[in-house]
């Protein structure tokens, strides 16, 4: 691998008819880190992955992977990358082992090495018991694991994961995250696309937010959250009658810029010092005889980030994925 960023793009443009799937995408992924490409459906994430993995040619712009240009040296790139696409790309009529062996041999490993590597991977991915069964009989989680294993056959230094946990149950999702984290620890450079804010938060060293084919913000999870604003303190009172008095207390402690939600009996305001202000608030509520039911210090979620940056929600499919689509975490 040559020097420089293992994954790099400058001004990538790709159009399908009138649709500009990519509209000047710039991207850099540092050696041994994971960058999450976060964005809604149709933001251009998959198109970007297809260009990096040499499946598509860009209309204009430049991209290099492992130091090689995607349009001029696609064949050199192929032996440095692994790809796990959006759909589970395994042969249903081959066993788990046969699938991995075939991929190994197509990477041009010797038959013996391909077999050895296949055994290693089924052990690593908890598929030993199912290794001799045809993949048709696998559960959704097992298929995903086999698919991910297939992308790792050649121990690639650069890995592309296109929405690797879409459609997984929470447990399989957690397992997949562990695998991905371990790969980063071992030095693999990863570009991961996701529409789950929580996933980007959990795995990524850096996050690039994409919308309509371009990166609209980039940074660490914390940096992005800071762009939206600092922490907020939110308090809920027990009685409607206390609401305005509570708002007065919050104003005194935080700032005049408080928001009041009468339906939820909640008051919130920006907090500069975080936890130290909580203690003062509690004392004053107590002294004023205001009964409170909830008191929280909020850090902005990536959800807020996305909303602020784009003016629209990140996940259009959240209704289809109840429960863990956009877990807002108060921390």
């Amino acid at each position, binding site marked *: 691998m040559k020097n420089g960023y293992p994954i790099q793009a400058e001004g990538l443009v790709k159009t399908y008819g009138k649709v500009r799937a990519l509209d000047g995408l710039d991207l850099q992924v540092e050696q041994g880190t994971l960058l999450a490409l976060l964005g809604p459906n149709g933001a251009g994430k998959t198109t970007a992955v297809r260009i990096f993995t040499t499946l598509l040619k860009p209309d204009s712009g430049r991209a290099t992977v492992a130091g090689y240009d995607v349009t001029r040296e696609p064949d050199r790139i192929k032996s440095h990358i692994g790809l796990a696409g959006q759909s589970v790309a395994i*042969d249903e009529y081959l066993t788990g082992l046969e699938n991995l062996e075939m991929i190994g041999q197509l990477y041009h*490993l010797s038959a013996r090495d391909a077999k050895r590597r296949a055994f290693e991977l089924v052990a690593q991915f908890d598929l030993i018991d199912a290794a001799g069964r045809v993949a048709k009989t696998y559960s959704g989680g097992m298929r995903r694991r086999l698919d991910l294993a297939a992308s790792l056959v050649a121990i690639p230094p650069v890995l592309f994961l296109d929405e690797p946990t879409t459609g997984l149950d929470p447990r399989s999702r957690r397992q997949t995250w562990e695998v991905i984290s371990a790969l980063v620890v071992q030095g693999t450079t990863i570009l991961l696309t996701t529409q789950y804010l929580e996933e980007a938060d959990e795995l990524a060293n850096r996050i690039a937010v994409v919308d309509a084919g371009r990166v609209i913000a980039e940074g660490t999870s914390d940096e992005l959250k800071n762009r939206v604003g600092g922490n907020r303190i939110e308090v809920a009172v027990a009685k409607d009658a206390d609401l305005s008095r509570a708002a007065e207390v919050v104003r005194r402690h935080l700032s005049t810029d408080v928001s009041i939600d009468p339906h939820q009996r909640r008051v919130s305001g920006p907090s500069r010092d975080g936890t130290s202000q909580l203690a003062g608030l509690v004392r004053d509520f107590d002294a004023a005889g205001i009964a409170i039911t909830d008191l929280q210090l909020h850090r902005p979620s990536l959800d807020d980030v996305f909303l602020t940056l784009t003016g629209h929600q990140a996940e259009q499919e959240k209704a289809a994925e109840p429960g863990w689509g956009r877990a807002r975490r108060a921390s």
Partner: protein
Amino acid sequence: MAVARTSVTPGTRYRPVTGRPAIVWALLDAMLLARRSVLRTWREPQLIVFVAIQPVMFVVLFRYVFGGAIQVPGGQYVNYLMPGIFVQTVAFGGVITAIGLAEDMQRGLIDRFRSLPMSSSAVVTGRTVADLVRNLFTVVIMLAVGFLVGFRPGGTIFEFVLAILVLMGISFAFSWISAFIGLLVHTVEAAQSGGFIWLFPLTFASSAFVPVATMPSWLRGFAEHNPITVLADSLRGLFHVNPALTTADTRWALIQSVGWIVAILAVFVPLSVMQYRRSTAR
């Protein structure tokens, strides 16, 4: 999941085999993928039905249902019919290539294969070679069934082998047309209908089941030069089952057959490989 247990530095422990010319890799990769497709046929009973039982039903249908009403010059209908059915069967068998490639595309397997440092002709070649193996298997079954219903080929062993060879030649050629269709349409359903639709006029407006002499003149022109016709007539000549065919007729039919095989391959091999290189899942 015990993940971090095997700590490996990327790209260090397994080195790809190097130093083989591209053509050797193209063949090795294609054989690997052909094996995969053939294995699949064994593991999916529906496909066995398709490759083995459906052709047998055609034999029975034409031999016993329509056969009595069809007149062929100088000889028994079963001897006229079987070579036609052989050609029809291998042509229809090629549709599995279209379906298989469309399925690989839908599942994202083509995307994975295209991201691997493998030969770019191997996926399509693998499919067409697998069809060839399946079709050979089907032809053996049909020879046996044909024998049971009264098919009695004559001629020498050499002629017999030559007949099977040209049959496999057209099987391979049709599979490449089918491959192009499969890569073009993107879905299994479309591959199924698109793969068959052009085969119906081709097989029925030919000498496969009835002599072309009974067809109206506008259709006869097409039927006489149709690859199915020249192939069926070549087989009839080589099997010595049609007294109406002279040695010169057989030779001419053979030349046309080989011409068709070469022409189809010359067009559709590069076309399919080009299409494969541009294909990605949607």
